[in-house]
């Protein structure tokens, strides 16, 4: 037999073994604070990189597009689609530096960005920050409103219908969610506009950004999103309903409504919270469509017009803005997630 001699050196007070407790008394100790700080710094650095990356992609894409930018600018100013003579183009090229080598143009642009200067719109002659700032609120209204409405719709549908005895009720709920998730927004928007605004006249057709005129666009964006959030929440809700801790709560004498609202819901919203970060970014894509259907001002319209006119500073500005929103949204999502599920913290 070749076993080595028994090691008998005590290494740890044996009592510790009997009082096992992994929990830290103070979850926000110094070390943790440092870790959190590092995470924030890391995030900011990553965010800056994301923004620069997005700007670079846009810059290159738009600069390298076929066709001549100066020609486009001139033509857009006159509403014609013709070729231009070198003499006509020279002043424009001079003004915007289109003649410089690409590297110089890029360096100038990024240099400006780093100084916080987003540039000036070719089309509107106004600083990009102003262009975006002016259209921010209508789109924010739309996106946040849609997110909130989607949450309400999804939660009501799930809490009321998920996991019920009656299969018909459950099927109705999940069917409604699947339907909602499958409805294209543009189509829904057109139908809502015609039926509710033009025919029934319940809502203004062109109220701009007034609250009444915001209802339909918000609904249009919210319904499909509610479908997605609802599906994600329902899956989780169904799963959680069968968790032991739910039975445990029932065994303490809790009723069904109490169980749904106090225990299950909180767990079930977690996937939907995660989805919301993505959704806020994706809502801008939806806004492009919805703003066009409902003739609403906003970033979506700015973006379409700027891409159409190859207004590079504006396009890049909008993209960076959206990227920033995405980054911030995900930080918020993390926060919300941590609020709902403090397990994340550790």
């Amino acid at each position, binding site marked *: 037999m070749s076993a080595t001699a028994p090691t008998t050196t005590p290494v740890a007070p044996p009592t510790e073994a009997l009082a096992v407790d992994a929990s830290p008394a103070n979850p926000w100790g110094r070390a943790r604070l440092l870790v959190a700080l590092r995470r924030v710094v890391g995030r900011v650095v990553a965010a800056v990189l994301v923004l620069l990356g997005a700007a670079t992609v846009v810059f290159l894409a738009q600069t390298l597009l076929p066709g001549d930018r100066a020609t486009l600018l001139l033509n857009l100013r006159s509403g014609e689609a013709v070729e231009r003579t070198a003499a006509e183009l020279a002043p424009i090229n001079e003004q915007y530096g289109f003649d410089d080598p690409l590297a110089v143009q890029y360096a100038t642009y990024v240099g400006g960005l780093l100084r916080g200067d987003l540039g000036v719109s070719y089309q509107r002659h106004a600083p990009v920050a102003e262009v975006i700032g002016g259209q921010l609120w*209508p789109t924010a209204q739309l996106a946040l409103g849609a997110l909130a409405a989607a949450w309400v719709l999804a939660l009501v549908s799930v809490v009321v219908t998920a996991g019920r005895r009656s299969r018909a009720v459950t099927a109705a709920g999940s069917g409604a969610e699947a339907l909602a998730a499958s409805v294209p927004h543009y189509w829904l928007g057109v139908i809502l506009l015609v039926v509710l*605004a033009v025919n029934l006249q319940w809502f203004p057709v062109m109220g701009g950004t007034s609250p009444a005129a915001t209802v339909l666009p918000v609904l249009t964006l919210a319904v499909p999103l509610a479908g997605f959030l609802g599906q994600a929440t329902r899956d989780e809700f169904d799963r959680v309903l069968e968790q032991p801790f739910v039975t445990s709560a029932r065994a303490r004498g809790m009723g069904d409504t109490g169980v749904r609202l106090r225990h299950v819901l909180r767990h079930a919203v977690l996937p939907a919270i995660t989805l919301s970060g993505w959704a806020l970014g994706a809502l801008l894509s939806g806004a492009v469509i919805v703003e066009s259907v*409902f003739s609403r001002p906003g970033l979506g319209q700015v973006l379409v017009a700027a891409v159409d006119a190859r207004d590079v500073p504006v396009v890049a500005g909008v993209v960076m803005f959206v990227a920033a929103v995405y980054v911030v949204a995900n930080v918020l999502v993390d926060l919300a997630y941590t609020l709902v599920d403090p397990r994340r913290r550790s």
Partner: protein
Amino acid sequence: APAGAEPAAPTTGEPVEGGTIVHAHVQEPPCLWGGWIQQAYLSRQVLDSLVSQDEDGEIVPWLATDWSVSEDQLVWTFTLAEGVEFTDGTPFDAQAVVDNFEFWITEQGNSTVLAYLGTYYESSRAVDPTTFELTLSRPYSSLLPALAQAYFGIQSPTALARGPEANCEEPIGTGPFTVEGWERGSVIRFARNPDYASAPANALHQGPAYVDGIEWRIVPDPVARFGALTTGEAHVVYDVPATQWTAAEQQYEVQQYITPGRPVALGLNTVAGPFTDVRVRKAFAAATDREAAVRSAFLGVVPFEGNGTVSASTPGYNAEVADDHPYDPDTAAALLDEAGWDSTDDEGYRVKDGERLEVRIVYGAGSIITPEGATVLQNLQEQVAEVGFQVTLVPATRDELFSGKFSGPESYDAKPGYWTSPTAGILHITFRQHLEESPNFSNSSFYNDPELEDLIVRANSSLDRAEQDRLYGEAQQILSDEAVSIGLYTQTTSLAVDPRLNDVWLEQSQGEPVYHDAWFER
């Protein structure tokens, strides 16, 4: 006093002051002033021009009360209205006009102005505060109609000096309204100019506008736009959808303006592709029942225009050429046989030397061709397939179109387009030769004919109206014989107006809506 012009709407009762007109419009330009028709609509509300064009096509006084031209037709002298002020307080005088001309010609502000004046302008001069003198390099008979357009609206020189951003957002003129504010993507607000005293001679009244202002709302979606009228949210709707026309005529006052200039026509590429052969061009024209295609697509609302170079409402229009290419599939087939496209492949398309008779039609979807226009093209596509043409429709985005991707002769076989202009002198823009030393990219058929150009130049310089019409007519005949441009339909502007709003009219050079005379019934 109002001179000669008939109001577009019958007046009932005495005008009342007050109210704000809500105008629902289709597009929003990047700036309120510029060389695009959408910009002309807006700048018309704030800028006055030197002259105005009335219902009969006559040029009547506006900021210029009188004018004369030298013997050699080169020196124009304008007498200007006195005591007029720009809304920023700058006095309106001859020097201001000189500044505007200098601005148009030397700044890179507005290429439409350049297209009209560029080859003619020599110099301008303020003789005294009320006398302005314009010197041309060669005679230009269409000068006055051109100046009547809102592109030639006179701006305050002080304001011009503010730089492009301010001029873009808030052009300043002597007009009936001032820009009050602009919520991008949503609404442009105009306020009444209380001191307005320079209405054109064909206006219904002098003095400030009756209404307090205009809310110019941007509603691109046709359904929403027309819906705004039916729900009472808007008083005026621009561009009435063809499908709503009948309904609109019953409830609202509908005005239609047939734009003079070049109608919407298919320019055929004469230097590359199948259309280099005039027989193929003629065959294409004969293979299409354009009248039916247009009637069906526009539900009879927009008139068919057979003349591919000048539209019916233009002075100098040659009505005879409109019927030159009637729908006749047999002729088309014969022409194709003759041109060597005499066999067909198994899909029914014509072939020659193993190549299929393929035609690429590039069109600016949305930007130049409306959905109804696209329907016309699709109808044509099916019609010519009967004779053996395979048409590929290429919808081009505004970016592609305007950045020149589809400008060269290799990039398309046919391209529909239009050009609004108050005179048949537009031919000089659209069919002047495209030469190395003097390029003309507006000649979308690439059709070069020195004789034709000579005819047009002579017409443009002729001061005798009959002579001028004859020369223009001859030019149109040549172009029709060569089938370089196939007429489709006229470019139209339409308004539907709430019946409680009176005396809204469309001016005649561009079809710009005029709200100076409008008033609400109580």
